[in-house]
């Protein structure tokens, strides 16, 4: 079943004429991992920003479970419905890993019995132990920060996980670990995982690979 549907989406940055996205149509379903690949400047990140509600589309529409993002509260959408994993992590760097997760839980308003334990369990799930969890993000490695970013994206149990170059700054071993976590989210937790990447290796983990060239999106391959 489609959780996120994109219809006739086009996008032009203010002050320019070039269409970064040109009449995009795609449906994203639960229990599946999608990869959107393309070269730098092809429009991948713009598409991600629109899908995650960080920016608003002017032409076309994006529907979350049938509701247009233009009409729903996008803050609620970001805090409750989707989890975004950023390439540059976008964590509060002078806060601890725990603080980042706890704050995300608070913002989403998710009710859990023991918030602290829940946050620790999320971090443990992505391979962050308690000691690391209580350290400031600034003092952690890129891989650890990316794991915290994943844990934060999962903290409110969203339907959709959107990841922008989630392994872009990581070594091969870490990359494999991160990708396993992401794919398991669709396989075991029925989530829709959308990964934006320029890496074919990362794309290989996906059930469907879509390519974006000059703002146009097309299906590259599909797992049986």
């Amino acid at each position: 079943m489609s959780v996120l549907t994109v219809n006739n989406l086009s996008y032009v940055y203010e002050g320019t004429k070039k269409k970064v996205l040109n009449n995009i149509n795609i449906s994203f379903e639960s229990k599946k991992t999608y990869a959107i690949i393309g070269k730098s400047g092809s429009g991948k990140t713009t598409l991600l920003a629109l899908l995650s509600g960080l920016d608003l589309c002017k032409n076309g529409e994006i529907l979350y479970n049938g509701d247009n993002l233009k009409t729903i509260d996008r803050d609620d959408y970001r805090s409750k419905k989707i989890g975004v994993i950023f390439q540059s992590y976008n964590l509060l760097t002078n806060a601890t890993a725990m603080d980042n997760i706890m704050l995300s839980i608070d913002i989403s308003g998710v009710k859990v019995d023991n918030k602290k334990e829940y946050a620790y369990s999320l971090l443990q799930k992505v391979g962050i132990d308690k000691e690391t969890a209580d350290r400031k993000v600034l003092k952690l490695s890129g891989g650890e920060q990316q794991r915290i970013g994943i844990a934060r994206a999962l903290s409110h149990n969203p339907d959709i996980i959107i990841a922008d170059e989630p392994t872009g700054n990581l070594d091969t071993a870490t990359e494999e670990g991160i990708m396993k976590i992401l794919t398991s989210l669709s396989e075991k937790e029925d989530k829709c995982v959308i990964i934006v990447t320029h890496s074919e290796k990362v794309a290989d983990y996906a059930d469907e690979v879509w390519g974006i060239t000059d703002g146009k999106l097309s299906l590259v391959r599909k797992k049986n």
Partner: protein
Amino acid sequence: MYIFKNAMKNIKRNKGRNLLMAIVMVIISVTCVIALVINGATTSIITDYKNQFGSEVNVELDYAKIYESGDINELPTVTIEELKGYADSDYVKDYYFYLEAPAVSNHISSLNQEDNSGIQGSEGAVGGGPELGPPNLKVIGSTSYQLFEEFKKGERKIISGRIFENDNEIVISEDLAKLNNLKSGDNIVLRSIADVEKDITLTITGIYQDLTKDDSADYAYKDPYMTRRNELLTNYETATTLVGEQSNTMSRIKYFLNSPDDLESFVKEAQGKGLSEYYNFTNNEYLYKQIAGPVESVQKISTVFLVVVLILGGIILVLLNLIALRERKYEIGVLRAIGMKKINVIKTLVYESIIVTMVAVTIGLGVGGLASQPVSDKLLADQIEQRQEQMDNMGGNFGGASAALPNDADIIDSLNAELDLGVVFAIFLIGGLLVIISSSMSLIYITKYEPIKILSERN
């Protein structure tokens, strides 16, 4: 609740930045507290003195103008009725007449009358003979007790008997009473200067103690008439019987205007009613400047200081915020990206500012409250010293003339610089201003930009 907790955590996380902000705010608060406390203390004093000196108006001959005109043979006069007519004015709140009448008594001695030069006539005769010597006593009569405010001020106090209530009743000084073995209920006889054949008997109703410094011993020539302790205090009518018709010209009037600012209009109005141009209404501006001048200077200094500190402090806070903005922009971007609503981000930032500001302002109130008194004392002492130096220089230039100088006791040499609710309220208002300044940059960013823009700028 999580917003407040997050704000608290943010303060701890950004200790350096917040400490720097807090230090600037503490300095601003301390300075503002001291300036406001001094302003409050000085304003009430200045207002009181301004009203006292500026609203009390006497009628005096303008000798400078008379000499200028060269018409010095015939001095213009003003009668009691005319003076009363001028008092019938919207500018006048109240007025009273008073009369300082020279008096002679041949049967009592006055202070500083070493050779009894004032006692004339046949010895032992009550009231003496028809000859009238120089006055050895002064009778001061007034239509109002306002003239005798010295009792209120504590410069004089009744130590036995009561104040006069009826005609021919007087109060005399303790020293004069002792000298002549007089007490309440005794009569004294004075010779009228209007009619040298006539004796006037007055009844002592009370004895007053004069608590001002008796400096008559400092002068080589001791004039009993000018000796404070030889003053007999009574009502205006009793004093007029001593001088007879001369009371018409010897009487003085004091007007109390509604406001010191009414003086010019009052003069114009009186001149319209026929007041000679050689008369002038004067308030005691000179004395006011001598007494309240240093306080006014302290107030000016504190006001300038307050304004400078607020401007400079505000600029420093804005600059600190600009420096911290890069970091804050990223933080705001992250919070917005994970779905925190604009209003909640604003609340977080404002809570942070409020907490830091309130802590700083509270410290500022405490330190400022403690420092206000010593700082105001020091400022005032410096101003008094400066003024004294100016006076000394003037004295040197003019041969040491020191007429119309205030008594030492009148000089304001301390301020009651206490923290009151008004100052606390004002400081918290300033605190509110500091909160706005310290969070304004971030607030502008939140309302202006989408999270993607803030984050992309950072990235």
